[in-house]
């Protein structure tokens, strides 16, 4: 069972910049893999292709059994609802509480509020921030903010969890905590792909590592 499959994928931006070239790899469902490379190597572009924030200029991207090139624009929201994303700058909304930030994906999908509240608290509990639900995220530390971002990404139990430099702003101890959190979600079956350039941490964790260099996959970790 394949969760993500890239087949000869290329992405060239209108300005001529070749972000990705001839990408071939597959991520099995239930796998956890790191995506590494220098900044500008194409890590973010690769994640954006999976999220349909960008479309490839060549090749095919498959998520589960869906060929994304055949997915019409109208279906993109429903595609995104099956994926959880964690950003480096966590993208929290500071005009609402921690609880409401985490509840957003459930509101969008139309969950019953009582059910949603239960799931939000479960997600906050998993990242260890249940006691902070009523606070505004702006009052929290960057490690805590990142955890809220993670809670928001997993609150609807996505099959696929993507993270773009989730430990970028954190100190080593906090970074390791965050990575262990991802390992926990992976253990219950979620496919996880984490873009990171924190090589020492990645090497300690002993998972599959995909390495990008100048837009090409130089090592697919197999």
């Amino acid at each position: 069972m394949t969760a993500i499959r890239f087949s000869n994928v290329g992405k060239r931006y209108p300005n001529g910049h070749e972000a990705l070239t001839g990408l071939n790899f597959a991520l099995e469902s239930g796998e956890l893999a790191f995506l590494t490379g220098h900044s500008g190597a194409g890590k973010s572009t690769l994640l954006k292709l999976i999220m349909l924030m960008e479309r490839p200029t060549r090749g095919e991207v498959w998520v589960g059994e869906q060929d994304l090139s055949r997915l019409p624009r109208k279906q993109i929201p429903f595609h995104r609802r099956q994926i959880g994303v964690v950003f480096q700058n966590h993208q929290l909304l500071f005009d609402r509480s921690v609880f409401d930030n985490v509840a957003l994906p459930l509101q969008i999908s139309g969950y019953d509020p009582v059910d949603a509240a239960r799931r939000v608290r479960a997600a906050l509990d998993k990242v260890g921030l249940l006691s902070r639900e009523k606070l505004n995220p702006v009052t929290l530390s960057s490690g805590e903010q990142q955890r809220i971002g993670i809670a928001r990404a997993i609150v609807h139990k996505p099959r696929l969890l993507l993270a773009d430099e989730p430990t970028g702003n954190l100190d080593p101890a906090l970074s390791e905590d965050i990575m262990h959190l991802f390992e926990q979600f992976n253990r219950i079956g979620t496919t996880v792909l984490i873009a990171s350039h924190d090589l020492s941490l990645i090497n300690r964790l002993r998972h599959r590592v995909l390495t990008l260099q100048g837009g090409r996959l130089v090592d697919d970790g197999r």
Partner: protein
Amino acid sequence: MAAEPRNSRRGGATPRRGAVQHRIGVADRMRGWLRHHMEVARQALVRLWSTPLASLMTLAVLAIALALPSFIFTALKNVEQLSAGIDTDPHISLYLDVTLSAERVDQLSRELLLRDDLVSVELISPEKGLEDFRRYTRFDDLLEFFDSNPLPAVITLIPRSSDPAALTRMQQALAQLPEVEEARLDLEWVRRLAAFMALAERSAWVLGGLLSLTVLLVVGNTVRMTIESRRDEILVSKMVGATDAWVRRPFLYSGVWFGLFGALLAWLLAQLALALIAEPVQALATLYLNGYVVQGLGIGASLTLLSTGMLLGLGGAWIAVGRHLRDIEPG
């Protein structure tokens, strides 16, 4: 709107590993959709009052733009009502054959008196006509050129009907009488008033159209600024799977609220303006017609004003949302 996700379930047998995905039924989605509508409407209202001064300024502009046409249309309605009640009885003047004897003329006027579709019949003999001509015009020396009285006998009729079509038919029938040289229907006054009213009404529509455009643009611009201020929220929402309709909804409700409250204020302004002119209009009306009461907006016009305001607000928001939401895409 919420179509089933295409690839929401993996095919084949039970997956070896993998989280159990949440599934939401259609009924839940419908309830969620309704709930979201109500919640979004409430939040849009709260947002409106969270910046009271800015909102009031916008509402004042909308109110004036909506009040002006309401006021003009109501004023026109009053003029119409008034003119319907005023004595505007049209006359038909029969110019008789000059060769007709005085007896025959007299007989004809008596015959006409018997008709019940006429309210009054007045005979003006050639002599009386000459006298009036001398008295009311400065051309009496013209008459020196004539050996005998050149004026025909005239019978002036006031028909019971005031319908222009019926009057024209009656005029044509009377013109066919052998004694009648010419039958003239005096509809000028009525025609002029009707023409004036048509012009005023058309102008009011043009003005109303321009001011509606103002409402569209004002609401559109206000909503555009709201969209800009909520850019982050739109981006995050789209990232976690919000549909275009979901993202659009709060802004459309803002537009509707602006339109509705603008229209309510406009209603107050229009009623106030009508109250201010009520007294002089009443004084004017009693000169022509007793017992005339100045009409306000009335229920029908009030409802039209409110729904027009709401629709224009929605339209303005729709335009702004269509123009700007697509530009805000994650990536």
